[in-house]
């Protein structure tokens, strides 16, 4: 699915170069469920953002589905991730002024999908996540677990091949967290490749592979 080769990312403070990512080599196959772990500041989120093409890197190669991401222009990159990647955030990041239905629909609008088609897709998703009854509510009217459910539904609406989750359960209680992880497991079984960042050993165990980061490098 994707391959990172010798990825470096750094910033300068004074004369020193501080590394955020250091010589990352990573290859992810279709259908894997990877958990990225490591202490705070080890570069987990940065790595996820680089994979998600939200962030750039300073050196190295990134191949995604036969495309060389490091050679692409920003516009081409955004077309690529729009089509293949879905994001789930720790803070859910739902749009406050849109209803559940509209939140889930938004990515489809940006992909210029026709209105009738959108309706069918959103209805399917609401069904699948069993939140049909909540479709007209606003995020503020939902519990954290429900909000994250909507967040996942929104990330999946455009049928991404890769789901990136940055501490998806970080703001949830353990029961809600478990539900989300169960959901991820199901999705993975259905063929979605997942990379999640997590602090919790328990959540990491849901994955098929664990990658440990320390100071921007992968620990072997």
């Amino acid at each position, binding site marked *: 699915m994707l391959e990172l080769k010798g990825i470096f990312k750094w910033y300068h403070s004074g004369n020193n170069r501080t590394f955020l990512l250091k010589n990352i080599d990573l290859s992810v196959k279709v259908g894997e469920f990877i958990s990225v772990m490591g202490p705070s500041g080890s570069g987990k989120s940065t790595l996820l953002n680089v994979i998600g093409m*939200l962030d750039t890197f300073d050196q190295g190669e990134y191949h995604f589905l036969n495309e060389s991401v490091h050679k692409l222009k920003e516009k081409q990159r955004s077309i690529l991730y729009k089509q293949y990647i879905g994001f789930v955030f720790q803070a859910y990041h*739902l749009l406050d002024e849109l209803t559940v239905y*509209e939140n889930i629909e938004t990515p489809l609008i*940006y992909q210029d999908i026709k209105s009738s088609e959108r309706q069918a897709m959103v209805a399917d998703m609401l069904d699948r996540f069993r939140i049909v009854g909540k479709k007209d509510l606003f995020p503020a009217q939902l519990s954290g677990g429900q909000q994250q459910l909507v967040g996942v539904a929104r990330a999946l609406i455009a049928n991404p091949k890769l789901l990136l989750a940055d501490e998806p359960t970080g703001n949830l209680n353990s029961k809600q967290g478990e539900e989300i992880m169960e959901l991820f497991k199901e999705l993975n079984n259905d063929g979605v490749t997942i990379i999640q960042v997590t602090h919790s050993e328990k959540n990491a165990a849901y994955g098929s592979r664990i990658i440990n980061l320390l100071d921007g490098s992968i620990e072997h």
Partner: protein
Amino acid sequence: MLKNILLTSIRNIFRNPLFSFINVFGLAVSMSLGLLIILIIKDQYSFDNFHKDSDRIFRVNTKALRTDGGSENYASAPFPLGISIKDGYSFAENIVLINNQLNGDAVYRNVIVPVHGFFADSSFLKVFNFKLEKGNPSTVLNDPDGLILTTDAAKKIFGNEDPMGKVVKFDGYGEFTVKGVFEKLSAKTHLDFEIIASLGALPLLEKQGAIKQTLNNWNNYYSNYVYIKIKKGENEKEINAALAQISRKHYAERKLETRDKGYEFYLHSLKKISPGPILSNSMGKALPVVILLFLGILAFTILLMAGLNYTNLMIAKSLKRSREIGVRKVLGATRWQIFLQFIGESVIFALVSLAASYLILQFLKTALLQLHLVQEFSIDLTEDKWVYIYFILFAISIGIFAGLLPAGYLSGFKPIVVLKNMMSKKGSERQLLRKGLMVVQFTISMVFIATVFVIFFQMRYLMQVDYGINDKNILNVNLSGNDYKKLSVELGSVAGVQQIGFVSHRLGTFQDYSDNYKLKISDAPFVMRDFRADPNFISNLKLRFAAGRNFATDLPDDRETEVIINEKALGYFNFKTADEAIGQQIYASDSIALSIVGVVNDFHFRPMNYEIGPLAFRYRPADFQHMSIAFEPGSNDKIIKALSSIWKKADPVHQLEYNLMRQDIDDAYESSGFTDILKIMEYVSFLSIIIACLGMLGMVMYNTQLRIKEVSIRKVMGAGVKDVTLLLSRSFIWLIGIGVAIGIPLSYLLGNLILQNFAYKISCGIWLISAGGVITALLGLIAICSQTIKAALANPVKNLRTE
């Protein structure tokens, strides 16, 4: 996409009611001004758009070059110019000659009605598409007695009778036969007429002396209009060259009017006549382009301020919106889509504001109809389908312009940056932009307010200034052509009337006569203004004589002998003292010998825009047009009552027109548009300060909210209300200070520019301007402190707890 934008925008409007109110209110009041101007402009551009081939119709204007180096443009041109074009050149498909000397009362049986119109021939109906309801357009003006009436004029003269074939008499012009009636015209035209008589009547009228010398008189460029419809493919430039040729040919050997040294003729496209430049002798009632420009600039400025508010508050809110933008981008939105979303949002804001401004417009229209300007130019403010389309287009473009800056700025956010809350770095740059916009707003407000002050105090000065005459307890009455002697006798017996005088023009208004004067018959004459008055008029004014006396009371009516001049005129005749002038003979109108019997002290006889110039009083009863009734103080109501009943019997045709003399003098400023400007400026500066203060309010409120935690911590650490208020207010007070500081020199310049129009004026001193600055600053300060004091008084623990 559109639905999504719409939903988000509308929910955003309701989610931030105060922010929305500030924006909608500001935009609405300023847009109402814009709507009004759209109405006025639409009205002004509706002139003469019903003529066929109007792009080929031109009027020939005259530029009179003065001997003193100046020049004046006239809408009129000499009659023989039209004939020369007709006979000597081939560029014209048709030429319309119009003579404007047809004014007076139409008499039919026992009906006497004042009407106005002009002489024209049948080409008038060929070139201009005025349709006839009755009569044959190709023959109706062929006979010298042919006459066409508008339906309104026909109704006034004939009532319900069929006017066709009826004979109407015009005082001084003879009899005309009605050969046609115009269809009622719903469109506007600069050609201002109720009746049109055949041009064929002119030769006889000229011979009889009923009209000024016209037909062969190249020096009479006042009484005629020359319109030409040029052939297809003819070039305006070449025609203007041909006109220059004509001018050279005919004026080379001719003796011109004293003040002129030559004339230039040029084409003026029909489409650019109304609205068009200010021209002397122009027909019709169209606003000059400068007025439109002036109103347009005001509206634009106010709109700019409201737009800046939107921009400002939108950018201020960017911190709140940044997360939304980041999420949207992660979900696949491109920069362009985000950009469109914010443009869409501001357009929706503008459309909501349009609805509100439409309501305000209705009030504004009522107020506007009170303005002299609107009445004078009979501006039609009705709305039609097109107006609504313009309104909506207007609102949309306002939305787009107000949204451009925030949309461009906000859509540039990088999702990774905003989602990680790394925004603070860009803060200072954003602050600077916002602060700059704020300063601009307060500068504009300050300039407006100071200008209102200048105009207001100048106005008050004009109203109170001593003209050097007695203008109290004098009633001016228009004679309307009535026999002054008869009226004088009848009114003389009314209780309270002290003395009745007569004069050619109401003194102190913009109207008067001027004539050529010289000391010796062989001298070069100079132009001096004069009033034709009787001795009573002069004594009513209580003018003081520097030497000599008033007119004798037994002067002959048919022959002039005496003249009174003012002190200013002495120098023009090379007299050293007033006494020296008494008994001297001077010449008026080239050859009328007059003996100076009195010299009066200088006084203001024109509005204060002008310096006191040389002046003469002459006794010419034929020119008397106004009565000046001096009455006992407090008896004016009684006198007006008596006057009305006497007038009704003496003259059933004309309305009685009267006014107090002082009122006439004050009204002159109003009719020159000065009061209108004051009223408009008052409204505009009111709007601008409201908008600026609202914008400030929004900024302060937002900023205070952001700093509420900091404030709470400081209070817990022991800061007092005063410290906190000052802390929160300081940077905003600076902005107002800078705005006012920039505004002061600008106001000073503008104030002096306005006062330049007056020979006598207040001094536009620094205290007057500063007063404007102080008021601006005070209002801004209220807006700031209303928020900061509130924040400073709040219980800190409460704010910290909710964190």
